[in-house]
């Protein structure tokens, strides 16, 4: 409920469209009721040979009502959908504003890669909030109240029955079903997840299943998962139908009561018989406005869940942001024109929910202008080390200092501004090569960009070449090189490179490194390397295993030592690629 409050606020930003949606919804509803009321009246009046002008006026009204109905329906649809999409845009912007300060830390908290698509899906599903949850009940209530006020003029009893009908079909029946429905959505979600897992395992794990003859078993599991998912969908569908039918039957029964009461009043002489048909037509029509209430419970529940999921993502960390915003002045800025020194002192770190230390009491110095390579098997803590420097994580123990200043006293932005970062996976945006390079700086000239592309051996690219989402039209090596070009253009003086050329062939790699070392001559550079070649030029090589530094020294020192690095080098020599 609380979460939907935020959504309601965003809805209210579009007052004009909201107002028009309700207004035209109301007019359309009233036009329909009036149309049928009028036709009931007209036909009854006609039967008792009235003066012709009554008929003429009624027929004219009939036309007016039907034209009004058609046009206002159109207007209602137009404005309500327009409002919906504007609200969607507001939601995206709002959510982005809340999410932005939490990045990149939040991505580590939620490991599953589909967090973002889930966010997008949830935002998307909130578009039903205005369209199906927010304004239809309002329209329904106004139309009902106006109709009831109108019938009151003819018969209080009929009006009372209508009120009861409104409460039943608009509140009690949907409420009852909403209450019964509460757990279903989550159950469907779980079962869908199970089926998705089984299908994924069947297809991706096929080789292992086949070899170990577990394929039949898996097929059975998949079939079972599919069947129970389908059965749950069926139950859900039937429940929805049942809900709808009950609502329909209740509203028809209310009309029946009105006919009984109306009939009684006419025979008792308390109501002019000419209005009987009209009242019946009114009640048959006005309940059309409560039809949307049949789907209200499910949409309400969907919206509520979507909103609470969304805001649990950005809301859960609220305190952290508050903490940092309370004392923003204390945070320091570093001068990014200097090459920084980095010190790590007895640093330990464990990932949330893991006992094993990813970094175990590491002490390292990276003097200003030094070039260091970090090598070691995957999972040895190399990337974690970079993430601490990037303030993605905070060290659980020990100190990390930049320029002698503790890193948690330095503003995030200042750290990032002074750093050239190339990660294992770099993001590229839908657009052109130029768009993706311009991220590094607005004032970049085409010349500078082309020069950077040349340095990473991507001279074949034109700045106007298309880049698809995630750079999916680029090869792995091209993406890595583009990422390097981007940081070359950024020109900061701390280089943090995490296996920047793992998909680039050895020759190209060494050319790129010459350019990099050239540009970074005076800068501090930390390179995580998957290959052990070309490390002779580094001032120092650090070998890590199980979160600890186990060896360090220059290339020749380590080779002479015949330790871990030497052995790794021997294996690398013997590996064919």
């Amino acid at each position, binding site marked *: 409920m609380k979460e939907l409050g935020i959504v309601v606020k965003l809805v209210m930003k579009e007052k004009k469209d909201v107002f028009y949606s309700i207004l035209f919804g109301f007019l359309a509803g009233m036009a329909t009721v009036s149309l049928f009321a009028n036709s009931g009246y007209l036909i009854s009046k006609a039967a008792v040979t009235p003066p012709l002008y009554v008929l003429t006026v009624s027929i004219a009204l009939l036309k007016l009502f039907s034209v009004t109905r058609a046009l206002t329906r159109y207007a209602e649809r137009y404005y309500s959908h327009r409002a919906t*999409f504007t609200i969607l845009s507001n939601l995206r912007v709002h959510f982005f504003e809340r*999410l932005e300060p939490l990045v990149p830390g939040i991505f580590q908290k939620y490991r599953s890669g589909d967090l973002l698509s889930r966010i997008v899906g949830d935002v998307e599903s909130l578009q039903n909030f205005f369209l199906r949850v927010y304004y239809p009940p309002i329209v329904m209530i106004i139309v009902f109240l106006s109709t009831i006020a109108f019938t009151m003029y003819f018969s209080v009893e009929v009006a009372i029955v209508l009120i009861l009908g409104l409460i039943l079909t608009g509140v009690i029946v949907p409420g009852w079903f909403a209450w019964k429905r509460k757990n279903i959505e989550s159950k469907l979600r779980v079962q869908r997840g199970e089926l998705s897992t089984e299908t994924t395992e069947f297809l*991706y794990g096929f080789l292992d299943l086949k070899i170990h003859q577990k394929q039949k078993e898996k097929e059975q599991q998949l079939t079972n998962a599919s069947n129970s998912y389908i059965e749950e969908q069926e139950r859900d569908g039937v429940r929805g139908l049942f809900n*709808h*039918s009950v609502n329909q039957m209740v509203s028809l029964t209310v009309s029946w009561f009105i006919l009984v009461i109306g009939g009684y009043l006419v025979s008792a002489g308390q109501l002019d018989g000419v209005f009987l048909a009209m009242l019946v037509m009114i009640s048959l029509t006005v309940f059309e406005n409560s039809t949307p209430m049949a789907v209200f419970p499910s949409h309400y529940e969907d919206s509520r869940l979507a909103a609470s999921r969304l805001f649990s993502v950005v809301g859960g960390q609220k305190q952290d942001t508050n903490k940092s915003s309370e004392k923003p002045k204390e945070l320091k800025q570093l001068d990014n024109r200097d090459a920084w020194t980095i010190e790590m002192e007895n640093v330990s770190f464990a990932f949330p929910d893991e006992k094993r230390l990813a970094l175990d009491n590491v002490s390292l110095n990276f003097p200003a202008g030094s070039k260091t390579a970090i090598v070691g098997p995957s999972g040895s803590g190399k990337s974690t080390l970079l993430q601490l420097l990037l303030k993605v994580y905070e060290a659980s123990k020990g100190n990390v200092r930049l320029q002698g200043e503790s890193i948690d006293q330095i503003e995030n932005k200042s750290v990032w501004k002074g750093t050239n970062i190339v990660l294992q996976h770099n*993001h590229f945006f839908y657009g052109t090569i130029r768009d993706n390079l311009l991220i590094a700086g607005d004032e970049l000239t085409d010349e500078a960009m082309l020069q950077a592309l040349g340095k990473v051996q991507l001279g074949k690219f034109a700045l106007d070449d298309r880049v698809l989402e995630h750079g999916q039209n680029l090869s792995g090596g091209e993406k890595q090189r583009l990422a390097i070009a981007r940081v070359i253009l950024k020109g900061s003086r701390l280089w943090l490179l995490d296996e920047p050329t793992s998909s680039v062939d050895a020759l190209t790699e060494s050319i790129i490194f010459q350019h990099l070392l050239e540009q970074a001559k005076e800068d501090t550079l930390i390179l995580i390397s998957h290959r052990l070649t070309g490390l002779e030029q580094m001032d120092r090589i650090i070998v890590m295993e199980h979160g600890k530094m186990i060896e360090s020294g220059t290339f020749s020192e380590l080779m002479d030592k015949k330790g871990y690095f030497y052995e790794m080098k021997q294996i690398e020599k013997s590996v064919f690629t």
Partner: protein
Amino acid sequence: MKKLKEKAQAQKKHRAILLFSSLLLGAMIVAQAYFIVTIVDRIFLQGASVSELLPEFGGLLLVLLGRGLFTYINGRTGVRMASIVKKEFRAELLAKFRRNPMQASLKGQSGEKVSVMMDSIDEIEAFYTKYYPQMIQTTFVPIIILIAVFSVNWVSGLTMVITAPFIPIFMIIIGQKTQKKSEEQMEKLAAFSGRFLDTLQGLSTLKYFGRSKEQLEGIRESSINYREATMDVLKIAFLSTLMMEFVSMLSMAIIALEVGLRLVIYNQLSFFTAFFVLVLAPEYYTSLKELGSAFHAGRGSTGAANRVTSELEQEEQPVEWGDNRLLGSDSPPSIEFKRVGFTYGEGSFALKEISAEIAPFKEVAIVGKSGAGKTTFLHLLSGLVSPSEGEIIVDGRPIFSYQESAWFDQIGYISQNPYLFSGTIAENIAVGGTSQSTRAEIVIASEKAGIAELVEGLDDGYDTFVGEGGRGLSGGEKQRVALARAFLKMPSVVIFDEPTVGLDLQTERILQRSIKELAKGSTIITVAHRLHTIKNADQILFLAEGSLVASGTHEDLVTQVPEYAEMVAVQQGGDAS
């Protein structure tokens, strides 16, 4: 749509229920009008009292409830039909994937196939829950209403018959226009709606470049553009509803005018007839209009059904097994390739004319550049795919003349990226054994595969959850799990895809040691990437571009095959660096 209709028609019982309840629904609608009109007529014009009309009131109540009931039955039948069809389609797809599994994963389309299995099949639902029941309803209900109207007033009936076609005609004309328009907009829409996800995914990158704040405007702008593009499509759809509304309104106005004139001026009709026609006319047109919206819902299903059918119609190279038992159980089988070729279709051979013999207990290395067909060779050898040409002989008989289980009992396959199923580590290792594998056996296998230490260091030990939603394992760790599977199984033919990158020292040593251990009782076929593996091999199969260039020992090949010698030289040249 044809396929979906066939599936619907195959469900004779459900179809009969739909026909029957649609007929009754039509009857209910007519009866409802009859009772209401009779009651109003009797009370209003003939001065009857409510108590005189008890049978009519009773009848009306039953009819109203019946109307709800039959709507419910119709809907429910649709939901049932959808469930059955979804189950059928899933089963067909599963059977298809089972017959044709490796092609999918070889072409890297597994993700697509998961989506077909999940989403496309779910999307089919609307055809049966929305379109099909409505179509049958629309076939019968208007006809029944027409019959009723004709029986009291043929002029109105004729008007209805003449005006009816305008609704579908308008629907078709406008539908075609919308489709064109929406197809034009589709790409635009996809780009706009993708923008939000793209920005979220790139948020870390943007922050590192200090660019995140600027994205707000971009998101707003693309959202608004999305709104405009969507509204363009929607406006046409709304307009089509408006037109339909006008058509039905105009038709109803004509009918009203006709009955009104004949009632008042010419006195040709009774009040009963006129009112009866007026009540039925809207029901008639509503039913026709509903088909339009149902048609819309059904169209989405058609696209999904096409995706499913095209998947089902894909060419396959099924693997059919015989029922021979394998012979000697103490010695591995001898394997012979006789002019074996394999193609993924379209005439491009992945392997051609491979002839080779693999004697029991030999260590065979397969060597070649990437793309030479090494993995395909392994798939053929292990019986996962069947050759397009030639045959593979095992112990003197074609491989596929044996029982499937008899063959796979002999095979161990350690791929570069073994699949972890969601479950515990113990369960994942037990995949290799029979269902009776004890924990003790699993622990022994783990020890041999050098993973016991790592597993026991985890909080939950062998009961730690891995795979989807569980703890992730590194590539080296996964290969050790696969090794443990092999130790549990003790196959007589071990197929091993050696890692292309250097792993950590420990895993490297374990791999070497384990393969040696496994080799004691089996034939080992390795796609080799390490010089020592190649040098130790009894026999090397040297592949290039899908052909077997040469076979022999390392010494043979170095001296006799220049291409091979060159490859080794390049590798050792790389050494020097």
